[in-house]
């Protein structure tokens, strides 16, 4: 299965992935309309460590995911290898946010959990963060 991988060597810390993610999941067709004057809640976040190294963190789609195991509402599930979230089932307990060892599950603007679903549920069809990364620092590929 294709997954998102990060090459921190090439991450410039420009944060464009966050904006592309927020736009892709906004359901709107214009980025200005989607993001202007709004706080964004992206599903990918650029982390900076103490040495100034930056890298984009998003869901790894673990084969044995703690978030799915811990979900009390049955909102998280694995479908064709992609860990998906059913927003109608999520009760906002945010246990998944606590247990994710990568910090890849985050709270959305309504206070319930959201996570990267590889842009499978929006109109992009392939991860927008990957397509928009100017330096090839986020890739979407099959690896052993």
């Amino acid at each position: 299965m294709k997954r998102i991988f990060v090459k921190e060597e090439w991450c410039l810390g420009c944060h464009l992935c966050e904006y592309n993610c927020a736009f892709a999941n906004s359901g709107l067709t214009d980025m200005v309309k989607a993001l202007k004057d709004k706080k964004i809640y992206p599903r990918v976040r650029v982390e900076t460590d103490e040495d100034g190294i930056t890298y984009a963190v998003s869901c790894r789609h673990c084969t044995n995911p703690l978030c799915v195991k811990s979900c009390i509402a049955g909102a998280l599930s694995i479908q064709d290898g992609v860990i998906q979230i059913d927003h109608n089932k999520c009760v906002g307990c945010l246990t998944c946010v606590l247990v994710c060892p990568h910090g890849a599950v985050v709270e959305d603007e309504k206070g319930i959990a959201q996570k990267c679903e590889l842009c499978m549920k929006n109109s992009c069809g392939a991860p927008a963060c990957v397509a928009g990364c100017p330096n090839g620092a986020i890739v979407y590929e099959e690896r052993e």
Partner: protein
Amino acid sequence: MNFYPEFEVVRNDSRCVRCRVCERQCANEVHWYDEDGKILLSDESKCVNCQRCVSLCPTRALKIVKSDCRLRENANYSDQTIKEIYRQAETGGVLLSSMGNPNPLPVYWDKILINASQVTNPPIDPLREPMETKVFLGKKPEKISRNEDGTLNTELPPQLSLTMPVMFSAMSYGSISYNAHASLARAAEKLGIYYNTGEGGLHEDFYRFGKNTIVQVASGRFGVHKDYLEAGAAIEIKMGQGAKPGIGGHLPGTKAVGDVSKTRMIPEGSDAISPAPHHDIYSIEDLRQLVFSLKEATEYRLPVIVKVAAVHNIAAIASGIARSGADIIAIDGFRGGTGAAPTRIRDNVGIPIELALAAVDKRLRDEGIRNNVSIVCGGSIRSASDVVKAIALGADACYVATAACLAMGCHLCRSCHTGKCNWGIATQRPDLVKRLNPEIGYKRLVNLMDAWRHEIKELMGGMGINSIEALRGNRLMLRGVGLTEKELEILGIGHAGE
């Protein structure tokens, strides 16, 4: 003295989503975010118009425009001329510039047109017919003889084999970044052509690309040692550079850091100053000594290139070089690029490559020594049609560097000498160098050259020529437009309609 900035940053605030990518990506620190007003502001006086911010702005909220605020100029004293005088009055210094001569001097490529076949001879369709773009650079034997079984009985001088008549010209590691060199090296290998180390030595990581590398020996002899010479496929003696004929080079100590200083074999932080002359070369005989020293050091396995700037007596100089034992002459025209050169020299010294090339090819043919050497021409070869015209004027191959830099992302902001290249090319700042991912850079270089190869084949096919060898020096395929008798005479071509 304060001037109104040269460029204006125009921000369409109704489109700006405050992602701050412009702020994060500008090494010149033009943009900043004002927390109080929740707005992005800019200091245009620092802007060099490299358009990194424009390129990355996700909502197209930015554009950079040339300011229309000019000093009171006239036909003699332009805004730029006046400002240069002010700057020199302030600093007392020599003006520095980067990239090629920007002045409106004639570009002869644009005044030369290419022939095509009609009716009496058929054009060739390169998609259906084989088309040869392979060239060999080096001294050609006067005649060859064969054994009875057909094998060659003549020892051939060393040759460079190129899949197409284009190479990446010299840009040193130091003037450009590690990632730029990595992109060029990988692209050269993939394409079956060569890139040139320039005068900065060869980083140890790139020895593995040696069979596609031309190693340069210039007046400073930086980074030259036996392994370096042996690592390459050819050795180039740099006598001059089109952008700055008659002067040496100067890599500021701020760029001679880490691996750059190690590769150049100079102390960290020290200025790398290449003298104007090679101090052991004051004649063709001296040049011959260096040519043969280098051949001796590499057991006569590698062709030696002598690179000179196109200057007034270029034909006579080339004639001397052709007799020096060199295998290839590289001529660099006055539009060639540079990482830094004194403005006055870049803009006023040297001659156009088209005239130099035509003069050299004619002189060597007249003297019967054209086959002693191959000719490589450079100094603003911008497209496949420039390549075709250069070959028809007599070149064996072309050197390109500015076009290669553009392929890697360069936006020709002409600020290489500041060392703050926002595109990760002409810089040694680690945070900027990483902006050029060689994985992307090399693919773009390969794409560019693949595109040029297709275009070269189409142009050749149109002329009814199916081999680049049959185009070389074929000046009947060229016509000039709007050129004087003298210019046509030097170019050795007829006027359109003739």
